[in-house]
């Protein structure tokens, strides 16, 4: 299907301060890609990241789980979409969203033999471009949990690796009852930038897994991760683990950070033991949340967005007071960053794909809320200002550099 989007050439202006240094060091325009429950929007920033041109909605009414720009060409966009009625698909644009074409073969599980109950993809949840050298290669994580690969820029997709059919992994994935409310998800598909046969994946639920042989075999990577207390769960069993988001540090590919159902963790390879760094967060805030954002150049710097994970798991900002927390020393200490954010009675939160960083110096941070607000900071979190309000529930936010 070829699609022509609605376009609004409007301008909006985010408030807040910008340092002269930021403007001086800005080289390329940043585009912020916003995927929502009812469509997608692109926000094109000016050189100072102060004013934003709106392009959207694209796919109005579609549930868009992820919208990603190919960093290898700075022009190609992939959108993972479905509607309430229709099955899942992937749309592709090679002109930064001016025109779209549907994938000829979207991610789909293999047809089950007669008499067996096969799985069907409900939605593609996570899109990840391959390494810089692997032109046209993309990976997709789906719900229910599956891993897929495209080698033609997202036009056709095939099941990838042994994940989809491995009996042990399938057992750890469990059923719809074991996953997130809108379906279990395979996410955080990470390719080692140094080695195209080295992968990390995360399963909600089902733990973290690593392959060093191109996906032929997988090894669990859950040592050090805690499981919910009081239920007698065995922490050595992947089925009890729910990684929310894992990120690899671009400046040090041997370091990963994870926002987990049970805390914030860091892993420094070759160790296989995660270290809980969230225990240094303020007790009244805790270290439960979904997104995890790594600094593009400093492996000691990360940002998280804590939520209320107490009692019945309200999954709102703790006390209705939203804040980003940052560490600059690998998790030894954390700093609250809430200047510009609502001081009280703000009960939204941020989903796992809905917070990100650009590559500008100083780093721009962006997050989208469950209440449809898009926020940004031009100074690494010290001051926040809204870019957009009144959008549908935001599922994913990516910041990319346009070529």
């Amino acid at each position: 299907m070829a699609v022509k989007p609605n376009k609004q050439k409007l301008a909006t202006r985010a408030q807040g301060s910008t340092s002269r240094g930021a403007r001086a060091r800005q080289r390329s325009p940043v585009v912020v890609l916003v995927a929502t429950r009812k469509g997608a929007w692109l926000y094109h920033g000016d050189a100072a990241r102060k004013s934003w041109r709106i392009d959207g909605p694209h796919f109005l009414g579609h549930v868009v789980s992820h919208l990603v720009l190919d960093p290898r060409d700075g022009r190609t966009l992939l959108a993972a979409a479905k509607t309430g009625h229709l099955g899942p698909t992937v749309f592709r644009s090679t002109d930064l969203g001016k025109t779209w074409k549907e994938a000829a073969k979207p991610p789909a599980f293999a047809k089950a033999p007669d008499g067996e109950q096969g799985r069907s993809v409900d939605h593609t949840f996570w899109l990840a471009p391959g390494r810089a050298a692997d032109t046209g290669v993309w990976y997709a994580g789906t719900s229910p949990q599956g891993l897929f690969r495209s080698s033609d820029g997202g036009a056709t997709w095939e099941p990838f690796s042994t994940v989809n059919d491995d009996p042990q992994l399938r057992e750890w994935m469990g059923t719809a009852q074991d996953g997130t409310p809108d379906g279990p998800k395979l996410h955080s598909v990470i390719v080692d930038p140094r080695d195209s046969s080295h992968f990390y994946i995360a399963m909600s639920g089902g733990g973290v897994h690593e392959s060093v042989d191109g996906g032929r075999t997988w090894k669990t990577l859950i040592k050090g991760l805690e499981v919910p207390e009081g239920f007698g769960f065995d922490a050595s069993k992947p089925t009890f683990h729910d990684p929310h988001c894992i990120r690899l540090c671009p400046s040090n590919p041997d370091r990963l950070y994870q926002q987990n159902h049970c805390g914030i963790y860091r892993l420094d390879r070759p160790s296989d033991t995660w270290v809980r760094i969230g225990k240094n967060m303020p007790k009244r805030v805790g270290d439960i949340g979904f997104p995890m954002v790594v600094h593009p150049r400093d492996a000691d710097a990360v940002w998280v967005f804590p939520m209320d994970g107490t009692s019945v798991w309200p999954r709102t900002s703790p006390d209705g007071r939203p804040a980003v927390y940052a560490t600059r020393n690998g998790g030894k200490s954390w700093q609250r960053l809430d200047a510009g954010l609502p001081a009280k009675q703000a009960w939204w939160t941020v989903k796992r794909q809905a917070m990100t960083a650009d590559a500008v110096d100083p780093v721009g941070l962006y997050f989208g809320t469950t209440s449809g607000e898009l926020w940004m900071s031009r100074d690494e979190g010290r001051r926040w200002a809204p870019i957009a309000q009144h959008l549908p529930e935001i599922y994913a936010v990516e910041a990319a550099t346009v070529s």
Partner: protein
Amino acid sequence: MKVLIPSALRSYTDKSEAEAQGATLAAVLANLDSQYPGIRFRMIDEQDRIRRHIRIFVNGDQARDLSQPLAAADEVIIVQALSGG
């Protein structure tokens, strides 16, 4: 035969009514997909199941099996069945 297309799928057909041929519902949907690539997968999953919020009626009766035989004069109506906000 005549196939009525719901609004959610008209981005494929650009019209509310399409013509398709086939001796079974499966064959008609395959023919429809050859004319409008991608339309079948939005209605039928990879296990050949009609998707949860899609209903297909043949001459007013709901079809539940893709192997259902069809005649050239039959009318196929595809309906999007979903409510909520």
